[in-house]
């Protein structure tokens, strides 16, 4: 059965989360969203319904975080908690319902990025871990790792220095370049530590996108093979006691068609989430 990292949110049932939760982690510029844009249509062609999600996409807190970041006066603790709000909103209203409906959830970053950012900003690791103890343990975490030398040109030469990506809130007085290097190096160190602790599958993100994708596909196929959806389906049909409740059946009916548009169009790849798995909204 699926587990959390220690604590359970009210009314969160873990017994029937049949879908798969696949996390793509990595620092800025590691190519996470490119990979999700490649993986999603591929999984859908294989017949899996897919929901993709990522930071600040919650209906509750996404806009608030964007507004707060515009001002450059977002404090460190406030920032950590605002992101936690965004995460838990998506966990409860998007990720869990999608898993319950048997979807594959592809998430662009997960609690690890949020923990790394907070820890680099001086929060106690135990504090931030305690907050995210309510998160679900994923089925796989792919860590797209890129060294600082490779990361710098990818980020900076494509879109320039960004205040937050450069950790300017952390190193006031530095110029953007120095700050970027210090901040991203600190993040990499923290990611490498988390990688060992949480069993990330490391992928060399310096390779070209197709090569990285082939590697991810191979690993995901193994994951789907190991604990196949057929198991779940056969349980549904053979044992009436585990048959889906009407609410879940309805959710599935609502959710399934919404996955369709992206099946034929993989061009809208910028990772905008579908509202398919938002039964409450």
């Amino acid at each position: 059965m699926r587990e959390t990292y220690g604590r359970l949110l009210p009314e969160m049932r873990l017994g029937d989360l049949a879908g798969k939760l696949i996390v793509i982690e990595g620092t800025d510029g590691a190519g996470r969203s490119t990979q999700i844009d490649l993986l999603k249509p591929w999984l859908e062609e294989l017949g899996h319904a897919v929901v993709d999600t990522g930071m600040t996409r919650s209906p509750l807190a996404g806009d608030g975080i964007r507004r707060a970041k515009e001002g450059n006066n977002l404090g460190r603790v406030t920032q950590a908690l605002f992101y936690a709000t965004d995460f838990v909103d998506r966990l409860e209203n998007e990720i869990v319902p999608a898993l319950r409906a048997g979807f594959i959830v592809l998430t662009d970053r997960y609690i690890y990025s949020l923990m790394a950012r907070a820890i680099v900003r001086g929060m106690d690791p135990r504090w931030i871990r305690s907050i995210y103890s309510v998160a679900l343990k994923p089925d796989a975490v792919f860590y797209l790792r890129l060294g600082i030398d490779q990361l710098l040109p990818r980020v900076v030469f494509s879109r320039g220095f960004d205040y937050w990506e450069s950790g300017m809130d952390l190193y006031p007085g530095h110029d953007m370049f120095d700050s970027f290097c210090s901040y991203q190096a600190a993040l990499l160190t923290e990611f490498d530590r988390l990688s060992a602790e949480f069993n990330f599958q490391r992928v060399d993100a310096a390779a070209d996108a197709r090569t990285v994708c082939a590697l991810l596909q191979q690993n995901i196929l193994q994951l789907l093979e190991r604990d196949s959806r057929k198991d779940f389906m056969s349980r549904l049909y053979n044992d009436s006691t585990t048959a889906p409740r009407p609410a879940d059946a309805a959710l599935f009916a609502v959710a399934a068609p919404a996955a369709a548009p992206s099946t034929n169009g993989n061009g809208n790849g910028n990772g905008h989430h579908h509202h398919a798995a938002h039964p409450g909204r």
Partner: protein
Amino acid sequence: MEIGSGVRIGPFEVFAPLQPAVSMVRHYGEHHFPGRLIVVEGIDGSGKSTQLSLLHKWLESKGYGVVFSEWNSSPLVKDTTKHGKKKKLLTPATFSLIHSTDFADRTERSILPLLKAGAVVLCDRYIYTAFARDVARGMDRDWVRELYGFAVKPAVAFYFRVPLETAIHRLLDGRDGFKFYEAGMDLNLAGDSVESFRMFQGRILSEYERMISEFGLTVVDATLPIEVQQAQVRQIVKAHLDKAKELRVKA
């Protein structure tokens, strides 16, 4: 710098240690700043805001630098909370988190710098409100306490204790019902907002009762005449300010 047996958990040295879950008394961050933090707590209708406002006027008249901070008032966060409430997007968990975000912003932006500057900071509701409400909504008691581990410990936390029925009479005198989240309607305790309010606030009251000893809250009998309560409040606050003469600014 570490404070007491504490571990640094935020970027500021005043931030609190995480206590093991078994600990009976929690030591939130003791600060060594010249300012004084005074908070009022209690259910809606306990009269705490009235008392705080009278205290505010008195402190100002005495020449102190006084600043007031209200629950749920961060300029960065309150629109998100409002949006969540209006659209009924909030679950017990996100209700808890968005309020902690608001509190974090007020702590970082105003409460801490003001205490450093030597102000008397008055808070209408503090972390105990979050503990009471969030646990009443089913959140894990320890999780919520750890969430607010960055909070500064107040010099005095007054708890205005009032029987539920008295509070309901005071509140209903002048309006027809209660707001959705205020009455805990998100918990589906009862269809009627007054009945739901009664059940929800009942849970909150019992959380406050358990926190009196856990956090050393100063209990004020909120059924006493306003003037009597205010005299008690001023006497207790005065004792804390006597040790902090340097706070006094020229009126």
